[in-house]
């Protein structure tokens, strides 16, 4: 029999989880006591839940904290087809052998990393069950398929994010899961602070950033009235980046803010009008 060749191995390497520490400080502007609370939770071995609308700095915050605490960060963007095996790991058949491959969660537990499960409610229901033993005093991950019980080292930390603006009842987080976490509320920062962030991240001047934030604030009033959610800071940063490259502000905002937000013609046009009015 031939041994598995390099391409089958590389197929596997693609699913292995690397553990790296961030070298440079990710820019994060604190808006409250979230840094202190997170650090305290990390020191106490408690899991943390970040709640808030999309694009308001949750992911950036975790990156920043991982850098601060000097721990590797493993981020998993959850989606509706994410299974327990995708998190924990699986046996793969390579040629005639079976090879065990740690999933990102297992890799993070073994390596004492911060594991960030982004938008956890998107994942399949059974996935939330595997994190339960990691979130109480056991702090352990049972890997059933291998009959292994991995106790998490002190540096391991579980962080999840959750957008309460979700409208689907099928994606509500159960109280039994929620109550295992220290929770931090995230929201769009105050206008001046947000303008500072947009200017810094997008590379635009303060005046342009202020206008972008004003536009963002206006769109947020349309939540529930044409929009599921207003423009998050991320969209404003995207528009700023386009403007910084020389694109006309109206064009940039249309492409980076209005179009991603709305499909419905009336709402799209209302956003067009707002963009024209603000710039």
């Amino acid at each position: 029999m031939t041994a598995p060749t390099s391409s089958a191995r590389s197929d596997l390497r693609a699913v292995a989880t690397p553990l790296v520490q961030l070298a440079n400080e990710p820019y994060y502007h604190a808006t409250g006591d979230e840094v202190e609370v997170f650090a305290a939770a990390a020191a106490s071995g408690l899991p943390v839940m970040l709640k808030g609308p999309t694009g308001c700095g949750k992911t950036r915050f975790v990156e920043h904290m991982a850098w601060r605490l000097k721990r590797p960060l493993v981020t998993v963007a959850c989606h509706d087809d994410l299974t327990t095996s995708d998190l924990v790991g699986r046996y793969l058949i390579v040629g005639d052998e079976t090879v065990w491959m740690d999933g990102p969660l297992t890799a993070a537990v073994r390596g004492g990393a911060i594991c960030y499960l982004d938008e956890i409610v998107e994942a399949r229901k059974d996935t939330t069950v595997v994190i339960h033993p990691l979130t109480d005093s056991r702090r352990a991950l049972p890997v059933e398929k291998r009959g292994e019980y991995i106790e998490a080292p002190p540096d391991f930390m579980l962080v999840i994010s959750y957008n309460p603006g979700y409208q689907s009842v099928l994606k509500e987080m159960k109280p039994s899961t929620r109550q295992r976490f220290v929770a931090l509320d995230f929201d769009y920062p105050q206008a001046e602070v947000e303008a500072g962030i947009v200017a810094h991240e997008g590379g635009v001047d303060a005046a342009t950033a202020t206008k972008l934030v004003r536009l963002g604030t206006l769109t947020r009033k349309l939540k529930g009235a044409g929009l599921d959610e207003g423009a998050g800071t991320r969209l404003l940063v995207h528009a700023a980046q386009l403007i910084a490259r020389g694109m006309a502000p109206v064009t940039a905002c249309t492409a980076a803010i209005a179009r991603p937000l709305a499909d419905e013609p009336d709402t799209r046009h209302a956003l067009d009008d707002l963009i024209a009015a603000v710039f």
Partner: protein
Amino acid sequence: MSERKLFVHELEARLDEMLLLSLRQRSPATPAAQLEALPRQVQERVLHWVGIAAQTSTELGWAIAQRAGTRAARPGFALDDWARAGLEAHDAGGLAAAQARLDDFAAAAPDTASAARGVAFAAVEGRLAGFLHALDGRPMQLRCGAKTWTDGETLWLPESLDLAADAAGNRRLHTVIAALLWAQARFGTFNVDPEPELVQWADREAALDWFSLFEGMRLEARLALELPGLARDMAALRGPWPADLEPVAARLARPEASAADSLACMAELRRVGAGDTVHPPYRTMLDPLAARRLRAARIARDTGTLRRALNIMRAIDPHSRGGSSDSEYPPLAADGDSVPAELQSGDLQGLPPDARAAAQSLAQDLDGIPPELLRPAGPGAWRPEERDEGEGPVAASSGEPDALYDEWDYRRGAWRRDWCHLYESEGPAGEHAWVDEVRVRHAHLIRSIRRRFEALRGEDKPQRRQLDGEEIDLDAQVDARADRLGGAEPSPRLFVHRRRVERSLAVMFMVDMSGSTKGWVNDAERESLVLLCEAIEALGDSYAIYGFSGWTRTHCDIYRIKRFGDRYDAATRQRIAGIEARDYTRMGVAVRHLSGLLHRQNARHKLLVTLSDGRPDDHGDEYRGRYGIEDTRRALLEAREKGIRSYCVTIDRHGADYLPQLYGPAHYTVIDDAKKLPARIADIYRKLTA
């Protein structure tokens, strides 16, 4: 879309389907023959408008179908504007008005270039509604009429605009006018009394023109602070001011200028002798008397609401309220006559939602809340206004109640035991023909909803050749074996992965049948239910529909439209048709009863969806206002504890004020126009359960 023209028989079939012509013994032959000659795009456009019109009335659709063929054949004919004008006329004056408008539109607009350029109100209404909602944070009332003005609550815009060089310019003009009217209300045009100045003028119309012009100057500058693009559009539209008006414009552009300054400018102008005023294209009318009358009524109403809230809050002993752990309103200062610090500092968070809305509105009307307004005139000051009694109750309840429910009294911080008498009965059957007509009228919509929903259900497709999965992929295994035998490298992707979509979901629809839903709202509710049923049948979720209404706590009625076990059959459809506007809205007890029924269902996810036009309200003063809101909130919290999620679809433009308190920030939708509900309901449901 294929470019092939539709043939007569195809056109006949489409018209027949939309307009039920065969039922009415009409022949689509003539209109179809006229349409056959047209390009496919125009044909589709005509059918599109016929379909839209038919949603309002099949007669209106027929009126358009009969006339469209000959008109659309003319070069450059503005079909969209023509059809919109007909629909608008129908809304305002019925079928005869619509027919007249459709006929004389062509005569009145022989200038086809102008028709292509001009922009009708109806064409921009939706976008302007969104635009103004974003500016104001609340939905605004938009209308069109001969006079362009606002009374401070409703904005009246021109029926159509054709002053700019192209359609885009005319759309911008609509936007500018709408923003200017909004700014008048928002930035205090009606906060001064202009009468002392106006009476000095011989020509009141001329005086109002000047006032409007000066206010335009002031508001343009005000808008420029936050919406420079809009101010630029205004400046471009008006062109430079005449030289003698420049100093006035500059003076009114100062940030601290107010409407009083506009009046002062008028006084000066009057002394030097006023010439002819200029008319910018975004010219608006002012009717200060009407606006101030409304403003006075609004201030009285808001002051009443606010005082009442303060009185109630003072009456509550803070200690007894300590027991209710869910209260998110911290007690306000309870001592003497002083105004709570929260209000003085402009922080309204401590108030219940209706009072907070009133305070915000007051602050806008009065540029702040004067403390003396808030000083309660003693405990007896509050006289709840009596609701118009009208005819007596039409409640179905009589005899022994089917159940008794407790009600939460937030003032006592305690339950009122067995307070509400609930009667459950079968909803009366309505006309069969109505449902059939709705299903035919929305045939296209229903078909597309069913297609989309069936696709949702059919997501259970196996994904082949995966690294991992529940089943072995035999094809992949065979390939791998062959590869191995042949010495090639076998792929490790040997499994089938199945996406499981488990929709273990039970949904209870709770339909508001209170008297205020009479008319459009009731129609919208019923039509939406028909569409919902079609959609949910395609999904296979388990669902029930109940109506609720009542007349005080001793007559709370629940009407069965469809129980969980019932099928969506002719009888159910007739009961949907039979849903009608009845009495009042005592919501808490309905939530308790229906969430009880829902709780008994054997499903993983349970959802209570309310279709309503407004807030909890009942006969007499008690349930209106905070009491009803608090009780309903409590009932929804109880449901939550049972694992039931609640969602509200409301047709109430002031809804956003209190819905977050009841349902939480993300769990409601406000539909500003009842007519839009049927088209949106399926999407709302899909998102809700995606």
